[in-house]
């Protein structure tokens, strides 16, 4: 999966966007991975991530299949961390999203001490990720660069829409839906926080960054 590689935006727009994820290597070290992945999520939870998820079983923000009509006036956007931690049942990719580098460094230091054996990656601006690693006492082992988009790029949405929509790299956020929510925020029909929470429910891996989304909605409103 390259679900966090090709987020759209300038270097500055990634200042509050750090995804740390843990993944076992299939057929090599995945046999006892479930407990290690739960441990990763429990450690991450202590650092108050803005999102967290398990690629196979869902994130802290989820849709509900049993709503009642009062939801239209009193929508709850509570994060369910327990559902993610307890939901891990098979080797997968687990991720936690942070909105500042200091927290990432502290989290990485604790992961280093915990020695889980899972591969730990940071998906972020490359220089910021390298800096976080170094502050935690680690040099990067491997690096993957996003080179952006080729081909029929005129079929892509506008910059503002892409910055929000590409935060679910699996493409679950439609451009039309993002545009609709941007318009609603501009019209005052929803707050940036409410619009961000709505989008977050569509990202089942938990890599959508509600803090960054809120900031982008605020910028759109100005």
């Amino acid at each position, binding site marked *: *999966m*390259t679900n966090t590689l090709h987020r759209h935006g300038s270097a500055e727009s*990634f200042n509050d966007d750090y995804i740390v994820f843990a993944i076992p290597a299939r057929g090599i070290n995945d046999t006892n991975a479930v407990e290690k992945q739960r441990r990763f999520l429990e450690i991450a939870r202590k650092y108050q991530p803005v999102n967290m998820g398990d690629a196979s079983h869902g994130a802290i923000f989820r849709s509900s299949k049993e*709503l009642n009509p009062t939801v239209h006036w009193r929508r709850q956007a509570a994060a369910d961390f327990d559902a993610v931690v307890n939901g891990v049942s098979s080797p997968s990719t687990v991720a936690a999203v942070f909105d500042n580098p200091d927290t990432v460094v502290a989290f990485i230091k604790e992961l280093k001490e915990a020695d889980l*054996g899972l591969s730990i990656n940071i998906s972020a601006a490359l220089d910021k990720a390298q800096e976080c690693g*170094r502050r935690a006492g680690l040099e990067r082992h491997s690096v993957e660069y996003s080179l952006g988009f080729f081909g029929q790029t005129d079929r892509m949405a506008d910059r503002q829409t892409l910055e929000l929509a590409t935060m679910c790299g699996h493409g*679950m956020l439609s451009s039309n839906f993002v545009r609709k929510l941007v318009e609603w925020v501009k019209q005052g029909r929803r707050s940036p926080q409410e619009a961000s929470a709505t989008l977050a429910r569509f990202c089942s891996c938990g890599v959508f960054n509600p803090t960054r989304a809120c900031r982008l909605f605020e910028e759109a409103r100005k």
Partner: protein
Amino acid sequence: MQIDQQKCVACGNCVAICPMGAISIDSQKNRAFVNADECVECYSCFRGMSMEKLNPILVRSIRRLLKVFRLRFDPEPDVCPTSAITPDELSWPRIVRRAFSDPIVTHESTGVHGRGTEEVKTNDVTNRVGAGEAGYVVEFGRPGVGVRFRDIEKMTRALAQMGIEFELKNPVTHMMTDKKTGKIRDDILNEKILSAIVEFKTGIENVAAVLRRVDEVSKTLETVVAVGVATRCDQTGGSALDAILNEEGFSFVRGKTNLGLGHASL
């Protein structure tokens, strides 16, 4: 995916939700419907939308009444009020749409989970991309455009002509009838999917030529192509790709950084 015509109240919420724009409202029937040819079975509508189980007749009556007074209810935009979204039973070849579009589903057609592989995310354990090598992830259809396999095949055939060997554990490679030529099986060529990733590696000295070829072929496709390239770093965290990519005129800001904490036994 289908919209249950007995339940649908034509609220239109699902229209904006569909990443492929495959859902619209039939103004004659006053119901939403899915364009099956454009639907990629990503399940974004079914899984992402929250559901109420209101009585459709009651909801339609209330909507008609409000319309008389030129009023409009402002519902939550991600809710289907009558649980009208209904998954289909999928069979071959349509099932590949879901396998390549729904991130939750295990890759039923290939036995491989997800659209790609572990790339360099587990390179500290697998050493899949070694020193002096470059790994590539060429992704089609994302963001928000979608792709048919016939377009992917144009790229795999062009890459194969360069002597590229495709990653064997990758789902697209599993769809090839001839991995030497990049030929993809005929019965899925017209299937539309949300995205697919072609993966391979070369010596680092071939990076410039490969990226130029990918750029050339991308221009002939009806979709968008997102490209990633990876390598193993040296002891100081340095990457030989920096100079090559700079020379080729690429600006690179974002990426994935493997911190090297993985090991073979847990």
